[in-house]
C-alpha cells in the first residue's frame, strides 16, 4: 500500500529555501495552493505496526518436565502394552480351556478397554475445554476494547447459563454488547457477582467441613488428608460451575496454575488476613476443641475457592 517516496517528484531548491511544498514550482510561496496544478503520484501514508512482545515459543525439549514426561510415556506404554499382552495371553489360554470361558474373558477385556477408553475420552474432552478457555483468555487480552466481542466469549457465557439459570439475564445483556469493552464491563458487573456468590457459597461449605474435620480428626496427618480431599472436591465444584469438565489432568493443571501464579499473587491478601486470623484463631481453637489451625484451614478453603474461580475465568 505504501508507495516509495521516490515516486513523488521533489524539486531541488537552495539550502535556504523557506518552508513549503517541495514539489511546488519555485518560488511559489509555501502556502500557495498552486501545487494543485502539479499532481503527485503516491498514496496515503501507512506505517508498519509495532512488533509483538510475546516471548518466542519454547524450544522442543527445553522444558524440564519433558524428560519426566518421556519417562511417564514409557511407563504408560509399558503398562498398556504389558496389560494388552497379558490380556492376549490370558484370552488364548481361556479359549484353549473352553470357548465359553474365552468369550467371557473377551467380554471382560472389552469392558476394561472400553472403560479405559471412555476415561481417556473424558480427560481429552476436559483438556480441550480448558484449552479453549485459555485461547479465549488470550483472545480477550489481544483484542482492543473497541472491537466487537468475540463469538467465543458469548459461547462461554451461554455455557454458564446452562448451569446457572440466574445468570441468564446478565448473559442477555452481554449478548447485546457491541464492543468488547462493553461486554467486559457487563461481565464484570453483572455476571461475575453471580459467579462470585456461588464460589463463595462453595468455599464456605468447604470451610465448614474443614473446620469440623480438623476438630474431630484424631491425628494431624488425617487433618491434612481431609483438607486435601475437601480442597480437591472444592476445586472440582468451582471448575464445574465455570463450565469446565474437571478431569484428573485438568485438576492437575489448575493446581499447577494456582501454585505458580494465583496462589502467589494473593500474597498481599494473605498478609492482610494473617492479622485477622491471629485474632480469631484463639477463640476458634477453643470452639474446635483446641485443634490448632482450624480457622486458618477454613479460611484457606475460602481463598482456594476464590483463586480457583479466577483461574477458571477467561478475564
Amino acid at each position: 500500500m505504501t508507495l516509495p517516496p521516490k515516486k513523488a517528484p521533489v524539486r531541488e531548491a537552495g539550502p535556504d529555501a523557506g518552508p513549503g511544498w517541495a514539489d511546488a514550482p519555485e518560488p511559489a510561496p509555501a502556502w500557495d495552493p498552486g501545487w494543485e496544478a502539479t499532481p503527485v503520484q503516491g498514496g496515503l501514508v501507512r506505517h508498519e505496526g509495532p512488533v509483538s512482545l510475546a516471548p518466542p515459543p519454547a524450544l522442543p525439549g527445553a522444558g524440564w518436565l519433558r524428560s519426566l514426561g518421556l519417562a511417564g510415556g514409557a511407563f504408560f506404554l509399558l503398562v498398556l502394552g504389558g496389560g494388552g499382552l497379558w490380556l492376549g495371553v490370558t484370552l488364548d489360554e481361556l479359549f484353549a480351556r473352553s470357548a465359553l470361558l474365552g468369550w467371557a474373558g473377551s467380554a471382560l477385556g472389552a469392558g476394561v478397554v472400553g472403560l479405559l477408553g471412555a476415561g481417556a475420552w473424558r480427560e481429552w474432552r476436559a483438556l480441550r475445554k480448558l484449552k479453549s478457555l485459555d485461547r479465549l483468555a488470550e483472545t480477550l487480552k489481544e483484542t482492543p476494547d473497541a472491537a466487537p466481542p468475540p463469538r467465543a466469549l458469548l459461547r462461554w457465557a451461554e455455557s454458564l447459563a446452562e448451569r446457572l439459570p440466574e445468570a441468564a439475564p446478565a448473559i442477555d445483556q452481554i449478548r447485546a454488547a457491541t464492543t468488547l469493552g462493553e461486554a467486559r464491563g457487563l461481565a464484570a458487573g453483572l455476571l461475575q457477582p453471580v459467579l462470585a456468590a456461588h464460589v463463595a457459597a462453595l468455599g464456605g461449605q468447604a470451610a465448614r467441613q474443614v473446620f469440623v474435620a480438623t476438630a474431630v480428626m484424631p491425628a494431624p496427618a488425617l487433618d491434612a488428608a481431609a483438607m486435601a480431599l475437601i480442597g480437591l472436591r472444592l476445586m472440582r465444584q468451582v471448575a464445574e460451575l465455570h463450565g469446565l469438565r474437571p478431569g484428573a489432568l485438568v485438576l492437575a493443571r489448575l493446581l499447577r496454575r494456582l501454585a505458580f501464579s494465583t496462589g502467589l499473587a494473593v500474597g498481599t491478601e494473605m498478609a492482610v488476613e494473617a492479622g485477622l486470623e491471629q485474632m480469631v484463631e484463639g477463640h476458634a481453637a477453643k470452639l474446635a476443641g483446641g485443634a490448632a489451625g482450624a480457622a486458618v484451614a477454613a479460611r484457606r478453603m475460602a481463598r482456594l475457592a476464590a483463586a480457583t474461580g479466577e483461574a477458571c475465568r477467561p478475564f
Partner: protein
Amino acid sequence: MDRLLHGMARLGDEAERLLNETSLRVAITGLSRSGKTVFITSLISNLLALGRGRDSLPALTRQLAANGQRILAVRLEPSGTQALDWFDAAEKLRDLAGATPHWPPRTADLASAALTLVVERRGRLGGLLPPRRLRLELLDYPGEWLLDLPLLDQDFSQWSAATLAQLKQPPRAALATDFFSFLASLPPDAPDEDAVARRGFLLYRDLLVAARDQAGLRWLQPGRFLVPGPKGDSPMMWFFPIPGQGPAAPGSLRDLLARRFDAYREDMRRSYFDPWFARFDRQVVLVDALGALCAGEGAFADARQAVAQIARAYDQRSRSPWLRLPMLKRVAFAASKLDHIPPVQRPAFLSMFQAMLGETGPKARHFALAALRSTEDGAATVSPPVVFGVPAGDTRRRPFRPGPIPESIPPAGDPFWRRPYFALPEFRPPLLDPEGRDGLPHLGMDTLLAWLLEDAL
C-alpha cells in the same frame, strides 16, 4: 455483622491498595493547537497496545527490561464518581481512523481519563509478590484556558496595563486599530453603561481571534473569550483592558470592568484551577515550536513568553498546601509536530527548542515528538530534506520541506525572520486500525514516557 464484614473488606482493599498501587496525576498542558488531545489519545492507545503485548513504546519496554520488569496489563479505568467529562479515547481514534479521517475538534471543556498499568515487580522476590499497579490520571482541557493561569495573580489595573502595552507592539498593533479607536472614543470618566462594555468586549474578542487565526499568536488572555466552555458567554465576561491607575470611581465603566474581571478570575479559580489544576505530580508542556518558528519573529517571541509564564504559574500553584513545597517531580517540555521535520534536521530542532525555553531547572527535560506520525521520511540525499505527507482533505502524497531550522534562536533583525508568515500544513492522519490494535505510530512518545515515569515504575 454485615457492617463488620463490609468494614473488614474495605480495610483489606485499602491495605492492598496502599501496598500495591501508586497514583500519578499527569498534567498534559500546552497552548491551543499544540496537540494535547492527540497526545493523550496516543498515550492511551499506545499504553493499551503495550498491555496487549505490542511493542508500541520501545524505549519504555527497554527501560523496564533493563530493570528486570515488564508491563503485564494496561487497563482503562472506569469513570468512577467524577463530575468531569470522560475523555473518550476510542471516539478520538474513530475521528483519526474513520472513513474521512480528521483531527479531533478543538477541545471545548475539561475531560479526564485514568489508566492502570500492571507492572511486574523487580528482583528475585518480586515474582513472589503480586504485581504493582501504577494509576495514571490524565486531564484534557482547552489550551486557551491555560493562559488564564498567570491571570490569577494579577489585578485588573496590572492586567490592563500589560495587555495594552503588548497590543501596541507588532504584530498585534496592526490588528488592534479598531479596538484602539474605540478606547480613544471613551471619555475619562465613562459611566458603567452595559452597551459600551459589551461593545468593547466584542471588539477585544475579535482582536484575539484575529491574532490567533491570522498571526499565529498564542499569548491571548483571557482564554475563555476564545473558548467559552459549557457556560457560554456570560455578562461576567463582558470586560476588556482599559487604561487607568489606582482605585476606580464607583459607578464608572472602569469599576464595572474591574468587578467583572475579578468575578471572571474567581470563577476560573473556583471552577477549574483549584479543583483540577493543582496537585499534579508530573507535567508535560506541549509547545508547537515549529509552528511558532514558521509564523515569524513576533509569534515566536509570543509563544516563548506564553510557555515561560505558564510553566512559572504552574509551578507556583502545584505546591503542598502547608509548606508550599513543589509537588511536581518531573516536567517534560515537548516540542510537538516532529513528523513535519526530516530526520537530518531533528537534532537542530531539539537544540533550537532548548534555546527557546532557556534554563528550565533540574527537574525539567526537553523532548521533541509527534504523538501521531502522519508523514514518512524522504530520502536523505534530497536537498533540502523533505518529509512526505498527505495534505488534509487530499489523497495524494506530497513532499514537504520545513526550511532551514537554526540550532539557536536567530537574533532580532536576522534575515531568517524576514520570511513571510507561514501556517504549517495540516497532514491527513495515516491509515490506522479504527480499533487501535497496534496503538498509534509516533515519534519520541516512548522516550518521553520512559523518562516521565522512570522513578514511578
